[in-house]
C-alpha cells in the first residue's frame, strides 16, 4: 500500500512532465483548425465521388443545369436500369448493349485481380522475404531495379507481349492480363512486403531455427501468420491495380475487363455521362467493399516502419 501511495505523486509528476513536453490536450482553436482541415481535405477527395453518384441519379437535362445540383431536387434510377438492361441508346450515343457486357466484365475483372493477388503474394512473398533476410552483395541495387521496372511505359513493352500471347493463343483471355500485369504489380508487392518483413523481429525466427525448423517451414509456419496484415495490404493494392488497369486490357483483349468497357461510353465526340456514371458506380462496388473490409491492414502495413 505504502508503495502505491508513494507511486501516485510520481505518476502525477510523469504526467506533468509529459504535458510539458507537448502531450497536453489541444486547445479548442487547434482542434477546430485540425478538424476543419481534415473536413476540407475529405471534401476535396469525396466531392468528385459525390458528383459521380449524383450524375448517375439525374437525367441528362439536369446534368446541364447551372449550377450543378449538388443535392438534386429529384432523382431517378433510370440510368442504372438502362445500363443493366442495355437500353442506353435512346438517351444518348455510344454503347447500347453495355448492360449485357458490364456484369460479365465485372466478373472477369474480379477473376483477373483475384488470381493476380494469389500469384503475386506467392512470388513476391518469397522474393521479399529473401531480400529482407538474406541480403547479398548488390541486393540494394536489385531492389532499386525492381522499383524502376514500374516506370517503364506500358506501350513500350506491350508489343512483345502481344506477339507472345498471339503465338500462345491466349489473346482476349484473362490469362493474357494475369501474365502481363505482373510487370507492374510484382514490384509493388515486393516493395511493400520487403518493407513489412524488415519490421518483423528476427528473434522469433531464430527460435524456430533452434527448434529445428527449415527456412521454408519458418516462412510458412512462423512468418506468414504474423505478416498477415502486410500480406493483406499488398493483396488489396494488387487487386486495385489489376481492377483499374486500362491499356494492357485495351490492347490484349476486346473489352474483357471493366476499364475499357467504361471507356466505350465515350464515342468519337459523343458522351453519355449519366450512363457512364451509373456504370462506374456499379463497377466501383467490389473494390470499395474490399478496401473497407481490409482498410485497417492496408494503413497499418503501409505505415510499417514509419515509427520505430
Amino acid at each position: 500500500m505504502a508503495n502505491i501511495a508513494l507511486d501516485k505523486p510520481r505518476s502525477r509528476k510523469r504526467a506533468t512532465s509529459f504535458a510539458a513536453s507537448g502531450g497536453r490536450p489541444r486547445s479548442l482553436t487547434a482542434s477546430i483548425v485540425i478538424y476543419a482541415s481534415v473536413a476540407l481535405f475529405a471534401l476535396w477527395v469525396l466531392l468528385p465521388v459525390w458528383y459521380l453518384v449524383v450524375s448517375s441519379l439525374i437525367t441528362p437535362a439536369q446534368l446541364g443545369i447551372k449550377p450543378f445540383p449538388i443535392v438534386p431536387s429529384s432523382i431517378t434510377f433510370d440510368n442504372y436500369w438502362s445500363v443493366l438492361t442495355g437500353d442506353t441508346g435512346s438517351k444518348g450515343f455510344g454503347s447500347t448493349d453495355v448492360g449485357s457486357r458490364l456484369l460479365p466484365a465485372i466478373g472477369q475483372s474480379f477473376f483477373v485481380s483475384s488470381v493476380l493477388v494469389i500469384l503475386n503474394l506467392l512470388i513476391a512473398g518469397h522474393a521479399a522475404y529473401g531480400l529482407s533476410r538474406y541480403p547479398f552483395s548488390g541486393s540494394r541495387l536489385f531492389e532499386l531495379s525492381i522499383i524502376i521496372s514500374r516506370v517503364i511505359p506500358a506501350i513500350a513493352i506491350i508489343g512483345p507481349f502481344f506477339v507472345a500471347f498471339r503465338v500462345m493463343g491466349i489473346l482476349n483471355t484473362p490469362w493474357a492480363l494475369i501474365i502481363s500485369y505482373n510487370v507492374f504489380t510484382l514490384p509493388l508487392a515486393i516493395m511493400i512486403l520487403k518493407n513489412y518483413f524488415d519490421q518483423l523481429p528476427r528473434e522469433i525466427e531464430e527460435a524456430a531455427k533452434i527448434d529445428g525448423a527449415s527456412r521454408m517451414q519458418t516462412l510458412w509456419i512462423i512468418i506468414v501468420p504474423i505478416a498477415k496484415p502486410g500480406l493483406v495490404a499488398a493483396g488489396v493494392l494488387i487487386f486495385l491495380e489489376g481492377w483499374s488497369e486500362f491499356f494492357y486490357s485495351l490492347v490484349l483483349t476486346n473489352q474483357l475487363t471493366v476499364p475499357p468497357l467504361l471507356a466505350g461510353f465515350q464515342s468519337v465526340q459523343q458522351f453519355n455521362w449519366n450512363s457512364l456514371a451509373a456504370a462506374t458506380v456499379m463497377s466501383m462496388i467490389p473494390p470499395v467493399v474490399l478496401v473497407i473490409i481490409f482498410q485497417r491492414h492496408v494503413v497499418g502495413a503501409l505505415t510499417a516502419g514509419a515509427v520505430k
Partner: protein
Amino acid sequence: MKTTDSAGKRGTGGLDRRAFLKAGGATALATIMAPAFAGRAQAAYSGTLDMLAWDFQPDTIKTLVAEWTAKGNPAVNVAVIPNLGYSPALQTRLRGGDAIDLYYNFAYNSQKFIDQGWAAKLNGLPGVDDMVADMFESARAAHVNAAGDIISAPYFSAVHMMHYNDRMLKEAGIAAAPQTLKEVYDASKILKDKKIVESPYVAYWVKEFCEEYLHTYLLNEGITAFDTAGKPVFADDAKTEGVFEWWQTMYQEGLAPKSVLSDDPGKLSNQMAQGDAAFFVLHHYFLSSIRSLGGKESANVMQGPIGGANHTFQIGEVLQLGEIGDEERRNAAWDLMKFYGWKDSAGKFTVFNQWAKAAGLAAPYPGFFKDPDVIAAFPDYYDLPLISKTFETGSKVVPARTLPWYPDFQAKVGDVVHALLLGQATPKKTVEDLTAAANSAQKGRSL
C-alpha cells in the same frame, strides 16, 4: 484478334428477335438459292473474317454484319474496343501480326497504314471505281490520294454546321442566322450586350480538337490550308491572320465561355439545350444530341450553313481493308467493306441508314440523301436538302489530313491555338508557329 463473341455465336443471344428471324430466313433462302450464288466471289471463301471496330453501338455493328453473313456470306468475328486508345491499340495489334480483314480507322491514319503495309489499296477491286464515282466529288479526296490510290471507304461523314437558338436571335432582332465569321462575332456581341445570353458562342475548342476548327474557320474565309503536296499555304494568304484575330477576340471578349477550352461536346450540347449558349459550331449530327436532351431551349435550336459564299469543313472516319494474301478471302472482305461503307447488294444504304437512325450520321453519297429509308430515318428537325447541298457544294475535305506526317502537326495545333486564345501569342505568331509545326512534322515524320 479472334474473339469469343463472333457474329455467328450471337445468333440467339445478341440479336433481337426480328433480326434473328430475318437472319434465319435469309440463311434458309441462301441455302435454297446456293446454285445462283455459285459465281459470286464471296461464296468462294468458306472461312471466317475478322473485323475490328470502335465501341459505337456494337450491338448494331454485329446485327448489320450478321445480316450480311445471312445473305450467304462468310461469318465475321467482330471485335470491339473503345474509341479512346483505339489508334495505339490497332497499331500494336497490326504490328504484332494480327490479321484483321476490315477495320475502322481514323482518316488521319489512312495513308500511313497503306505505307506501313497494314492496309491494302482498293484499286482494281470489283466495283471500287463505281463506289468512288458514286461519292460527292467533294468527298473523294478523303479516300483517293493524289497518286490515284484508293485507300479507304467511308465509315461515316459529317459537315460542320451552325447550330443556333432561333428564339434568342428573334429576341435580339437578328434577322438571320450568322454565316461568316464577322456575322458570328456581330451577332454574339448583340446577344451579349442585350444580356440575352452571357457567352453566346460555344465550340469544342479542347486542344485535341482545335485542328478541326482551324480548317473550319479557314475554309469559312475561303482559305486553303495545304496545297496538294501538303505545303502549308495558309501562311501565304493575308486573310489567315484575320481568322486568328477573330478567334482570339471571341475568347478574349467573353463571347465564348472561359471553360470552353476544356468543355466536352456533351456539355456544350447541354448548354445549347438549356439556353446557356446561342451558337454551337460542330458536326451536323449534334443537332440530334441537343434536341434529344429535352432542355428548355432544345426545340428552339436550328441548324444553318456556315461559311457564306465559301465553304465549311467536311470530315469523316474511314474503313480500311487489311493486307490479305488469300484472294478469295480478300474478295470476301471487300464485299463486306462495300456493304459496310457503300451499299448492299440490293443497292440500299443499309448500314448508313442504321447510323443515320442511331445518331444522325451521314454518308458522302448523293444517293444516300435521296434514299426514302434514309429520309425517314432522320428526324423532321433536320434539313436534309441543306445538309446534302452542303456536302455537294458547300464543304471541302482537307486531303493533307490523310498524309502520314499529319498526326504530328495535328498534335501541335492545340497548344498553338490555346496560346492564341489565352492571349499568349499574337495572330501573326500563331501563323508562324503553325507553319513551323507543319514543316517540322513533314521533315521529322517517322513511325
